[in-house]
C-alpha cells in the first residue's frame, strides 16, 4: 500500500521549533509502524531519529504518539492505523522535552519512578528457601509486574500535562506493585510518598493511561486500590 507518513521533526542543532516532514512510502499492511520508520531512516533520510530495540513490545523503547495516540511503534500494524492512500502521523510523546525528532528526555520519568522506592524492602532474616507467597497473593500484583516502563501512560495523562511534577501512572503503578507485594515490609513509607500533593490524588480516573498501555494493564483499577489503601492506612 502507498501511504503518506508525516513526522514531527526537531533537530536541536538546526531547528528553533519542531517542523512537520512528509514522506511517501510503499508499505505492507502487515508492517509494524516501526517498520515504516526504519524504512524511512534506512532508505530515505538517515537523519530521522527514534529509539528502538526489541521490536516486539517488550523493551519499551519506542513509545510515541501515532495518529494522535500514545503507542509502541513496534506493537501496532499499519492495517490498524491507515488505509491505502491515507496518512500516518508520528510525534514524540507529549509533555516531554524533545531531544531530537521522536526521542524524548525520559530522565524526569525515571526520577518519578525512583521517588516511589521501586524495590522490595524486607529486612527480616532471609529464609533458606523462597519467601512463600500464595498464588492468590501473587495474582494481586501480577498484572502490575507486566509494566515495561515505556512511558506511554504517564505521557497520555492530562494530570501530567497540567502538572509536570505529578508522579504519574507508571510510578504509581510501581508503588502499587510493591505496596501490595506480601513480601514487602515498607508499605507505610511508600504510601506516605504517594499520598501526597503530587501523588495519587491527581489521578482523576480519566482512563487515558489504560487506553495507552501497550501491555493492556488496567492501571486505573490498581491505582484505585492504592488510593483505598492510602486512605485506610491514614485513618
Amino acid at each position: 500500500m502507498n501511504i503518506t507518513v508525516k513526522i514531527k521533526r526537531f533537530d536541536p542543532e538546526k531547528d528553533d521549533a519542531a517542523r512537520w516532514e512528509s514522506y511517501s512510502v510503499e508499505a505492507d499492511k502487515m508492517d509494524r509502524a516501526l517498520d515504516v520508520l526504519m524504512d524511512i531512516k534506512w532508505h530515505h533520510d538517515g537523519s530521522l531519529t527514534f529509539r528502538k530495540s526489541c521490536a516486539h513490545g517488550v523493551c519499551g523503547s519506542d513509545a510515541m504518539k501515532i495518529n494522535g495516540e500514545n503507542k509502541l511503534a513496534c506493537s501496532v500494524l499499519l492495517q490498524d492505523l491507515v488505509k491505502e492512500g491515507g496518512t500516518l502521523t508520528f510525534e514524540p510523546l507529549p509533555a516531554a522535552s524533545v531531544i531530537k525528532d521522536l526521542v524524548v528526555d525520559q530522565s524526569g520519568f525515571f526520577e518519578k519512578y525512583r521517588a516511589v522506592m521501586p524495590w522490595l524492602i524486607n529486612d527480616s532474616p532471609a529464609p533458606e528457601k523462597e519467601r512463600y507467597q500464595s498464588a492468590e497473593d501473587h495474582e494481586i500484583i501480577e498484572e502490575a509486574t507486566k509494566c515495561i516502563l515505556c512511558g506511554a501512560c504517564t505521557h497520555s495523562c492530562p494530570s501530567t500535562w497540567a502538572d509536570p511534577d505529578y508522579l504519574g501512572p507508571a510510578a504509581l503503578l510501581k508503588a502499587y506493585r510493591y505496596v501490595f507485594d506480601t513480601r514487602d515490609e515498607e508499605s507505610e513509607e511508600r504510601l506516605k510518598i504517594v499520598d501526597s500533593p503530587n501523588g495519587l490524588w491527581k489521578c482523576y480516573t480519566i482512563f487515558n493511561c489504560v487506553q495507552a498501555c501497550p501491555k493492556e494493564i488496567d492501571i486505573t483499577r490498581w491505582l484505585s486500590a492504592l488510593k483505598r489503601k492510602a486512605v485506610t492506612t491514614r485513618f
Partner: protein
Amino acid sequence: MTFSHDIVIVGAGGAGLMAALYAAEEGADVAVVSKLHPLRSHTGAAQGGIGAALGNEEEDSWLWHAFDTVKGSDYLGDQDAIEQMCKDAPRTIIELEHYGVPFSRTNEGKIAQRRFGGHTRNFGEAPVRRACYAADRTGHVILHTLYEQCVKKQVRFYDEYQVLDLLMTEGGTCNGVVAYEILTGDVHTFHAKAVCFATGGYGRVFKTTSNAHAGTGDGFALAVRAGVPLQDMEFVQFHPTGLYRLGILITEGARGEGGILRNSEGERFMERYAPTVKDLAPRDMVSQCIYTEIREGRGINGKEYVHLDMTHVGKEVLEHKLPEISTFSRVYLGIDPVEQPIPVAPTCHYAMGGIPTNVDGQVVRSGDRSDIVPGFYACGECACVSVHGANRLGTNSLLDLVVFGRRTGMAMAAAIKADNKKAALSENPEKRTRDTLESIMARSDGEKAVSIRTDLQETMMKNVSVYRNDDTLAESLSDLKDLRRRVKSVTVEDKGRKFNTDLMDAVEILFMMDYAEAIAAGAKNRTESRGAHSREDFSSRDDENWLKHTLFFGKGDDGYDIEYKDVTITRFQPKERKY
C-alpha cells in the same frame, strides 16, 4: 572527560546488572555503561523460565540438571563449569526471589516450575519440571528486579553510552574503556581496575532473529580487536519456534505446557525423531527436524514453516501461563492460538560461543586456562565459560546470566579489595575512537550501513544457519571478505553531534564485520556435526578429532588464526545423543 570507578561493567542486561549488584553489595564503586537504558536490555525478552533443580513440583537434583546440560551441549560443554552452574542454580534463584522477583507460584506458595526442552529426571528418563517462571515474561521480571536493586544500591549508571574501545596497557592489563555519549556526541574515558563485558549476543548478523536490534555483538568485536580470542563461535542457536517471517520468539514453554509441532499433513513429526521427549527435544534437534520437514515438502502450504498447535491446551493455560505469546500471535499474525495453530520457523536466537572465561568471569586468552587477561572479565551471552557447548538448553541462558553474573561481580569485588591500584592510562586513550568517528563523519562518498548489513545478514542466513556445508561456508567467507572491504567506506547522512543513531548504525556494522568471520571460519574448519553445528557433508559427530573448543584470533585485514583447546570432562563420558 575521564570517569574513574573501581569497576566498569559494559552492558546492563541480566548479567551486567547481576555483576553490578553483587559487586556493589561488597561495597565496590560500580559503574554500568550501556548503549540502551538498562530496562531496554534484551534479557527482558526472555520468556519461558530459568532452570534450577529446586524440586518444587517434583523430585529433581542438580546432578540430573548437569547431565542434561552436558548431553544438551553434545558433550562440548566444560563439565566442571556445568557442575558449578547447576550447583549454584538453586541458591541463586532463591536469592533472586529474596530480591523481589515475582515468580509464579505453586499452590503451596513456592516458586512454580514447568517443563522445558532437554530437561529430564534421572538422566534422561522423562521430562521434569525444572524451569522456574513468571508466566511467559521471566526475563522481564528478573531484569526489572535487578535494575531496581541496583538503583537501591546506588550503582552509577551511564545510560545511552556506546562503548567503542577496550583499553589495555602494553603489558596486556585491561584498565578501562572509551565510550561515546549518544546524547551529546562526546567521547569519554572510563578508567577502572576491572572491566566486565556483559554485552549480549549477535543475533542481528542473521536475517531472521529473535534478538533485539541492539544485539549487534559489540563486545565480541572489541575483544577481538584487543587480541582476545573468541571461542566456539560456530555454534549458533536457532530457536525452533520464531513467528513465521518475523522471527519473534515463541517460548519453548509453549511446548512445555503441551504445545505440539505439526507438519502439512497434520503429523506430530517430532515423535519420529525423538520418541521419548518428542516436542521437548533440545533446540538444535527440533530446528534441524523442522528444516528437514520443510525440505522434504511437508512445510505448511509448501512454505518454509510448520505449525505450533496449542488449540488443545486450552484458553485458561494460554491466558494465564502464556499471555505474551498469545498476544504476539494475535497482534503480528492475526492468529488466536486458542483457535488456530501458530505458523513458526527457526529463528537465530543465541550465541553459544563468545569471549572465553573461567567460572569467575576472568577472561582467558589462550588454550591455557590459567592464562588470564588481568582486569578483564566477561559474563552472560557474550562470554563462553563454556556451559552450553554446542547447544544450549532452554532456561540455561537466564541461569548462565545470573550464576556467572553473580560470581563475576563477587570476583571483581574481591580483586578490588586485594589491590585497588588502577593501571595507568596511556597518553591519549581516546585517539583511536575519535579517529574512527571523525573519518566516518567526514566521508561523503560511500555506502550506508544498511546495505552492508543487509548483505551480511543475507549471506549468514543463506550459508551459515541451521544446515551448512563446505560450499556454503566458503561462499560466506568470500562474501565476508568483500563486505570487510565495503565497510571501510561506510558513510552517514546525519552529520549532527546530538543523538546520532545513523553514526551508531555505522559503528555497529564495523563491529559486526570484526567477528562474523569467526562464526563462518570456525564452522568451515569443523568437519563434523555437533549440536547446533550441522554439516551436510559431515553428518556425524567425530569425537576423535573434534571433541575440542575452537579459538578464533582475528587479525583484521590479515585474516585470522584458529587454535583449539581441550574440553573438560569430569563425570559424563561422551555417548551417542538420543532423546
